[in-house]
């Protein structure tokens, strides 16, 4: 069972607002708690929806779980990101209200879009695979299909886990996995 403090920490991690030591603790929390890992994924999905970015559910293969969680979140409000205590001030309630409004709008847009339109088509999913949305050229692995990207990531991490002591010492073995990002 994750504590509220842990959830706040994960929320701050998603936003990239954690300091060095808190970030390490948050990552440890994530690896230990499936519930927190699911929150991480859900908040990323919502964030992408709010920013109007395509959500590549096919790579996640968790559309049903995410949707169920989002439904539960929509109905009960239990899955909402925990409010984080920042600088107190007069703007905070207004900012919170705006953020909450945006989140509801984003979530509504996200939920009203059929899952089959959000995914690129994946083995085992119901529905007709839709054509892939236009992707930026600079995707990881230069692959437009998120399923291919996710699969290559898995094969690479699996390989590095076995050979990290050889050519790429320590953290260098995983730098490409986490560090690779093409600038917009």
């Amino acid at each position, binding site marked *: 069972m994750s504590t509220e403090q842990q959830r706040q920490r994960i929320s701050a991690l998603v*936003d990239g607002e954690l300091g060095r030591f808190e*970030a390490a603790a948050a*990552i440890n929390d994530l690896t230990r708690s499936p519930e927190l890992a699911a929150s991480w994924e859900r908040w990323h999905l919502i964030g992408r929806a709010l920013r109007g970015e395509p959500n590549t559910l096919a790579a996640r293969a968790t559309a049903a779980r995410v949707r169920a969680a989002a439904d539960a979140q929509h109905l009960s409000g239990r899955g909402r990101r925990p409010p984080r205590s920042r600088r107190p001030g007069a703007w905070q309630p207004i900012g919170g209200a705006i953020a909450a409004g945006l989140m509801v709008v984003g979530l509504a847009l996200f939920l009203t879009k059929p899952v089959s339109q959000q995914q690129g088509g994946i*083995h085992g999913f119901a529905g007709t695979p839709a054509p892939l949305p236009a992707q930026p050229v600079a995707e990881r692995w230069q692959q437009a299909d998120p399923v291919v*990207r*996710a699969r290559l990531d*898995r094969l690479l991490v699996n390989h590095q886990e076995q050979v990290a002591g050889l050519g790429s010492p320590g953290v260098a073995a995983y730098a490409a996995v986490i560090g690779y990002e093409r600038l917009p």
Partner: protein
Amino acid sequence: MVRSRRLGGTTPGNMMRPRRAFLLALCVVAALWLCALVAQAAEAPQRLLERMNRALEQVEFNGTLVYLHGQDLAALRVTHRIKDGNPGESMLSLTGPVRALSRHARGVTCMLPDAAPLTVPKAHGRRGMLRKVPLDFERLSAYYDIRYLGQFRVAGRDTDVVGVLAQDGFRYGYRFYLDKASGLPLKLDLLDEDETPVQQIMFTDIAIEGQGDAGAEPAGGGSPEQVPAQADAGPNWLSAALPPGFHVVSEESLRRDDGASIHQLVLSDGLASFSIYLEPPLDGALQGESRLGAVSAAGGRVGEQQVTVVGEVPPATVRMVLEGTDPPDQPW
């Protein structure tokens, strides 16, 4: 008269003999000292690399590193801890979308923004033994030129620079910048055949904590945890496809989410490595070539198998392996 001169030993010739002997002895000592110095110099980079491996097993640190690939630069926050004798890392991207990775007692968990968190279980038994494989310099010297390149300052700390330079285009070369105090690599360049960096990783700041005695030789002359590499020519269908120097060092059977088996062969020349994955065809498999920084991948259907080759080697290497691979329908 003549005899007395000889016996007396006071002729100028006799007086020269001790001097000559002394000079000769001095020359021998100097030559031996020079030989020892040369031998020590030749061993130095190898000692430094061995020390680096020990440091990664013994020294805790946290810091910020930058990762440069092509024209793109990323920053990562890194924490390296030793718990119950097992090293683990957490890494967090500081640029672009938040990405995180944790290597822990149960394996590696990786969280990327456009995919579900993925966990690869810790390598047990034969899996993971490669971490403990000592560097085989005799074997490496056939394919790499190992040199001490001098000194440099990285993250405000003094380092020794060791080059492990590839002698052909089937593998990358390496330039290690090793912290003089701890032995940790503070900068690592991956070099192509022309010694041009294709990828660079460098700490911009680092705090070293719980520093063990990485400089000391382990008891017994070698780490008791180390096991010898088990190089294997691999199956017959593979041998024709391999670039020079690469051997099968591990063979594994994995399970796919849909229950199908994946056969994995790990190949290495002692430093560079790649994996060959063989499995029944599936949606979402790589068809063609792809890259992630210095990591290359090539995949395609070969007979009844999907073959994917992935590793931190040049594209030509994975292409050669894929094109030369002709596995039977059931290679295991």
